[in-house]
């Protein structure tokens, strides 16, 4: 039997910077200059011809096949090309080179709730969303009951969705996507919707689709725990290429090894940044100052030094360190007071001490964030994910701790007394 998905030497190039000059007049000027071999009037100073043509290969020759009924996880650090791959497979954009053959209908859950319209009721939106995802009216008619039941929004189904809470909105959207009658399901971390109970329900539904309905699943996630649960095979993408394709456990190991830098110092100026950042303060490098390796006993603190560059004058910003498990599940975070005051154009050394005593034995990943908070609104200045791995070892006299049952944070009780009454 032929594979259900065949990807052959897939490439996708994005041009960097501004495309064109943004106006017809501007483009015509550039075009005329090219013909008459004059200098392009729209090039800014210091911008050479070569730079103008700079491009970025989001995918650079990716080939793989997926057989019917397989559940394949796609992992890779931010910017590795995962989302681009899914966008190409779901036909949102088209490849620069290469070919994809699909032998089944695709249900894309890249963004649930696409096409939802606030003015329309839940029921109307189910039809609209289902049709956009490729269902016919009779198919939706048949599944309407299941979808409403799954969404847990029955009482509100004839209310315009603009009056829904965001949780209800997402639940309804996911319910539609999950009931698509398709052979291939594509998911991009949509499982992070709703409350814990609903998340579990979603995961069960996916699990069921993969194992019992014989659906083919392509799942992109940073959450290694769900990848492990859902997938039977795993592909690692790195800089637009496949670096591993096979067993899930082995893949997670390799992936964490690849991002798992455990150096005590490193450059951060070139690390990829994601999210909506105001680039006013930037972390340039880090250094662990009290250690030559990243293994700690939990009694001692983690001392860090950062080089910080200020592009704007900023006051009262805070430093935060986010601690994640090797499955990239957040465990907890340290947050400083409003101590970061910097002046535009200056370089600074930022020192901080982190008290690790509440973290139990295990491996962790540290991410850093500089942000500013006022009246509950957070402005992020810089955010570097998954900077380094560190390991906590048990100190002598610690209670035995099984983090599988007890979690990774040790909490203390005080004033425990027992008296005879």
């Amino acid at each position, binding site marked *: 039997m032929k594979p259900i998905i065949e990807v052959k030497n897939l490439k996708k190039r994005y041009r960097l910077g501004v495309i064109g000059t943004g106006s017809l007049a501007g*483009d015509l000027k550039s075009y005329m200059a090219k013909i008459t071999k004059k200098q392009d009037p729209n090039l800014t100073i210091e911008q050479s011809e070569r730079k103008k043509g700079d491009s970025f290969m989001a995918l650079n020759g990716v080939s793989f096949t997926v057989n019917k009924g397989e559940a394949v996880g796609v992992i890779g650090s931010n910017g590795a090309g995962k989302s681009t791959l899914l966008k190409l497979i779901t036909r949102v954009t088209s490849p620069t080179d290469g070919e994809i053959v699909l032998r089944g209908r695709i249900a894309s859950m890249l963004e649930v709730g696409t096409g939802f*319209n606030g003015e329309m009721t839940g029921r109307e939106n189910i039809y609209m969303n289902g049709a956009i995802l490729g269902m016919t009216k009779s198919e939706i008619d048949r599944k309407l009951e299941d979808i409403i039941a799954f969404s847990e929004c029955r009482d509100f189904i004839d209310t315009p969705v603009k009056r829904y809470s965001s949780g209800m909105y997402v639940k309804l959207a996911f319910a539609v996507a999950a009931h698509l009658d398709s052979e291939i399901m594509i998911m991009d971390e949509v499982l992070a919707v709703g409350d814990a109970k609903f998340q579990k329900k979603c995961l069960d539904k996916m699990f069921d689709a993969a194992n019992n309905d014989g659906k083919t699943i392509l799942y992109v996630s940073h959450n290694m725990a769900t990848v492990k649960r859902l997938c039977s095979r795993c592909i690692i993408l790195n800089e637009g290429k496949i670096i591993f394709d096979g067993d899930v456990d082995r893949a997670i190991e390799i992936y964490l090894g690849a991002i798992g830098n455990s150096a005590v110092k490193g450059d951060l100026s070139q690390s990829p940044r994601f999210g909506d950042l105001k680039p006013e303060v930037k972390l340039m490098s880090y250094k662990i100052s009290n250690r030559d390796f990243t293994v700690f006993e939990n009694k001692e603190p983690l001392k860090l030094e950062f080089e910080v560059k200020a592009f704007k004058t900023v006051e009262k910003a805070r430093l935060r360190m986010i601690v994640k498990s090797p499955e990239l599940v957040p465990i907890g975070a340290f947050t400083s007071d409003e101590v970061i005051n910097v002046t535009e154009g200056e370089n600074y050394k930022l020192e901080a001490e982190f008290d690790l005593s509440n973290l139990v034995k295990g491996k962790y990943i540290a991410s850093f964030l500089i942000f500013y908070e006022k009246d509950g609104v957070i402005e992020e200045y810089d955010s570097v994910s998954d900077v380094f791995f560190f390991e906590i070892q048990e100190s002598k006299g610690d209670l035995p701790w099984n983090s599988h049952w007890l979690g990774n944070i040790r909490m203390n009780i005080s004033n425990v007394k027992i008296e005879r009454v």
Partner: protein
Amino acid sequence: MDNYEVVIKSKTKWYEVNLKEVFMYKDLIKLFVQRNFALIYKQTILGPLWLILNPLVTSVVFTVVFGQFAGLSTGGMPQFLFYMSGNTIWMLFSSSVNGTSGTFLNNAHIFGKVYFPRLTVPISQMVTSVINFLIQFAMLVIVYFYFLFFTDEAVAFSPYFLLLPLLIIQTALLGTAVGVIISSVTIKYRDLAVAAGLILQMWMYLTPVVYTLDSVSGVMRTLLLLNPMTSVVNNFRFCLAGGGELVTGYWIYSAVITVLLAFGSIVLYNKMEKNFVDSI
């Protein structure tokens, strides 16, 4: 669906427009049309009444301004019927253009996330415009019957009314084609979105909506007839109520232009939709 197979390649031939797939999504087109109607009239007082009020009021204004104040000739047709007929068919054209000219920009958030045949959007807009038009057209026919049966005005009944469907389809196609071309070009050049309104306004005055074709002569008349909408509006009036004369040669020319633009716009649209997500 064992034989279902889709091949996604980097380059496709210019004529590869998958109309079969568009047909498979006919339910979506229907829903889009329903949505278009539902959304316009939600939370309004008069609701669908606006659909009839709009051309009526415009026609009254035209009658007063162009008919009474300016005293433009209507070629013997009752003024109100003259302006209303021109206005109704022109509104089909302008709403076809307006409805589709923002296709890419307005739907960027959906197009960027999920695939469905993109042509469903302009097609549903066109259907919406045509349904709107049919309601207004019914109104026009009532006005026409009033003049035919209850007044002594020069209103004729002729078998030419059988040509009306052709004119209506042509207008909707032409308007949609122009709108789709505008929407494809606005991906790169946003100025056209601003210019579109202006162009449409100028276009109306270059079309005999508020004046008769007969009142223009010589080179100007030829230039006017090069505008594909001129013969359509003129013939629409003629076929409905026998006003003016039937233009045949330029009508054929206009039909050819319409077909060419319709094909051209589909090809262009098809080419733009593939990668527009990367450049919007």
